[in-house]
């Protein structure tokens, strides 16, 4: 009888255990589409055996643990690939905008410079013609507008990047706080011997998201808490406390700061990774460079045209007339050409003021017009490039940046997907696997029930021995 009772007991444990295992499988199936979910597995182990009349007899089965599958290599790789992908992906938007501005179609600064010089060339055939003179003024006006619009658009992109950064801040801070809270919860759960599987999954997801936005690096301390640092080494989450990212606007400018309790540190592109690095590079390196080149182009155009124009004589016999308002020319440390594009302006207001001639009372004199038209093919910028070529170099720079970002982005996305697939193959939920487990545990459950009914029959038989 004691043997039957213990068999009954073993059957009972098996029934419970298979039920539990089925539950775990069911949970896996439910979470088949949950991002970041790691497959869980019920670890079955036999109850300790009992010595019974010189034999060791098993006492059934129990669920020793519910384990979450994990692969730290894959997790770390995913983190890295997310950071690279984030960096390149974030550049795509602003770079596409820049490509639109520095296009190679018929509506860019190069085309306006062309048509500007073309109007001078045409004026040279009939220098006293007021219609042609007005045409020069109109085309110059368009050129000035084009410079100003381009300058404005560069600033708009910069503001758009700043707003994008600002918009991401609150989500990042929330994530950092959630991560710190999870650190705390996991540590306290796991010291009491439980496995905080769901919390760990969530924490991994947060780390990966932070990698994509900030390119963060992580290390796990002895208490199982994940510490998150920015690529430059500044801490973002330390154990169960999170630092805060802040953005400070001053006019159009935007400064990112990391608040470390009492102090705060200014963040530059080199402190960051992921999407933030990509955006900061565009905003702090590429756009200022383009802006400076645009200013230099405007400055060179204005000063060179003025130099020739002021040497000529207009229809009213005046000389020394500037064609463009002289650019502001700030002193060091600013470059002399800074701000030239946005302040470019026509100084002449009507066709009579165009200094076409080199000598007075000579309406038919086209020599100064020819001198100005000739500037188009002269290497004016730094004595090395023509105005059009200088614009080309700006457009090719944007093109290079953009094509490179596209190339790296495609590669990074590929690598990220590969890594995500690798993660799936290691720790993901496969429906086939779960279905087979389902069958397996169902059969186990059925067999346990069979065992119970068999034992029951045996006890019945035993009880009917005496009637």
């Amino acid at each position, binding site marked *: 009888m004691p043997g039957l009772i213990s068999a009954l007991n073993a059957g009972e444990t098996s029934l419970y255990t298979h039920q539990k295992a089925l539950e775990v499988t069911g949970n896996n199936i439910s979470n088949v589409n949950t991002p970041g979910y790691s497959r869980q597995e019920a670890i079955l182990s036999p109850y300790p055996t009992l010595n019974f009349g010189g034999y060791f007899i098993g006492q059934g089965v129990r669920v020793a643990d519910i384990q979450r599958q994990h692969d730290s290599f894959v997790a770390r790789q995913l983190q890295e690939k997310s950071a690279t992908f984030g960096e390149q992906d974030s550049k795509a938007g602003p770079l596409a905008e820049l490509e639109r501005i*520095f296009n190679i179609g018929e509506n860019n600064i190069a085309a306006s410079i062309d048509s500007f010089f073309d109007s001078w060339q045409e004026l040279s055939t009939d220098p006293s013609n007021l219609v042609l003179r007005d045409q020069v003024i109109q085309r110059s006006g368009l050129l000035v507008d084009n410079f100003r619009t381009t300058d404005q658009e560069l600033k708009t992109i910069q503001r758009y990047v700043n707003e994008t950064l600002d918009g991401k801040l609150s989500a990042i801070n929330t994530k950092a706080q959630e991560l710190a809270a999870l650190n705390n919860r996991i540590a306290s759960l796991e010291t009491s011997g439980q496995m905080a599987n769901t919390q760990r999954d969530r924490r991994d997801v947060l780390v990966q998201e932070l990698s994509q936005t900030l390119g963060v690096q992580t290390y796990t301390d002895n208490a199982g808490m994940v510490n998150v640092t920015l690529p430059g080494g500044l801490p973002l989450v330390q154990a169960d406390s999170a630092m805060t990212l802040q953005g400070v606007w001053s006019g159009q400018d935007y400064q990112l700061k990391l608040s470390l309790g009492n102090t705060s540190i200014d963040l530059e592109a080199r402190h960051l990774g992921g999407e933030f690095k990509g955006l900061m590079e565009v905003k702090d390196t590429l756009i200022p460079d383009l802006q400076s080149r645009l200013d230099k182009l405007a400055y060179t155009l204005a000063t060179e045209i003025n130099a020739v124009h002021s040497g000529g004589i207009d229809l009213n016999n005046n000389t020394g007339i500037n064609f463009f308002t002289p650019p502001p020319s700030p002193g060091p440390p600013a470059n002399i050409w800074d701000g030239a594009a946005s302040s470019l302006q026509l100084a002449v207001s009507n066709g009579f003021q165009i200094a076409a001639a080199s000598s007075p009372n000579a*309406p038919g004199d086209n020599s100064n017009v020819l001198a100005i038209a*000739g500037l188009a093919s002269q290497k004016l910028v730094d004595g090395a490039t023509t105005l059009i070529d200088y614009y080309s170099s700006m457009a090719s720079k944007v093109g290079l940046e*953009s094509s490179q970002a596209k190339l790296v982005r495609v590669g990074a996305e590929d690598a990220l997907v590969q890594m995500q697939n690798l993660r799936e193959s290691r720790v993901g939920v496969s429906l086939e696997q779960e279905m087979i487990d389902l069958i397996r545990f169902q059969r186990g459950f059925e067999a346990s029930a069979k065992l119970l009914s068999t034992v029951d029959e045996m006890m019945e038989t035993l009880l009917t021995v005496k009637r």
Partner: protein
Amino acid sequence: MKATQWTTYRSMQLQLGTMGDRLHELRTLAATGKKVSRPSDDPSSVRPILDVRAQVRLADRYLETMGTGLDRAKVVEGHMSSMENALVRAKELALSAVNGGYDPQSMATVADQIANIRAQLVDTANARFDGKYVFAGYEEQTKPFTVNPTYNPATYNPANPATYPVLYNVGLANSQPNMLEISPGETVQVGLTGNSLFLGDADNDGVTDPGAYDIFAVLTQIEEAIRADDKTAISAKLDTIDGAADQARRLRSKIGNNAARLESAMQQMEITKIDLKETLSRYEDADLIETLTDLTQQETAFEAALNITAKISELSILKFI
């Protein structure tokens, strides 16, 4: 290794995304016919494209300028041909005055005819085109020649312009021929200044050059000789008419040569323009046959990928248990 549902769908999604992108690119390529429509399509050809495009525009402009130049040269030539005819007529009249045995009455008539020819030449010298004086150099609004009201044959002095029978009103500094730019840095003269043509002052110093002729003075002196019935003086002056006609012919051939040069330069520029357009096309135009073939290929591949994606759900363990 196992392939989960996520793996399969994620991979298909990426594949379809990439293929869709490529398809879009090829469609844009086929629709625009341009293989470079953004700087990132080929950063290295941005500079040649913008450069060549500027050169094509410039070639168009030069062609138009040369057209204008040819028109101007033709106008000048037209005036010079009438001037030559006038000088030939003057020579005939002078010859007939020497050899004709005319009575004084007829001589006066011949002198009047010479005076008419001179007046006609003054009109030619003051000819206007498009509202501007053709022979006034840069001072195109100044009437270049006026008859000298204080002219006196006795005080006529070739070294003093103020004593000339017809005065030149254009400032010497502005007495420059019309120059047009027909290719970068290359200019061509399409006009003549009145003083070089009519006064023989090619070096622009205000007085008739040695060996050149003040055509108005020549005609005035012939007229005076005929009116005075001085056959010796007329004979002596006959050569100067020839010289004056030669001076006009020489300058006319110069303008003619320049016109011919313009015409050949125009042909040359047309060829250059075609070459430039070919270069531009090589840089920015797509090979349409290749593009369309690629497009068809990509569409087929995309269709196949869509087909596969749709079939993924058909194959499931759930159907078998």
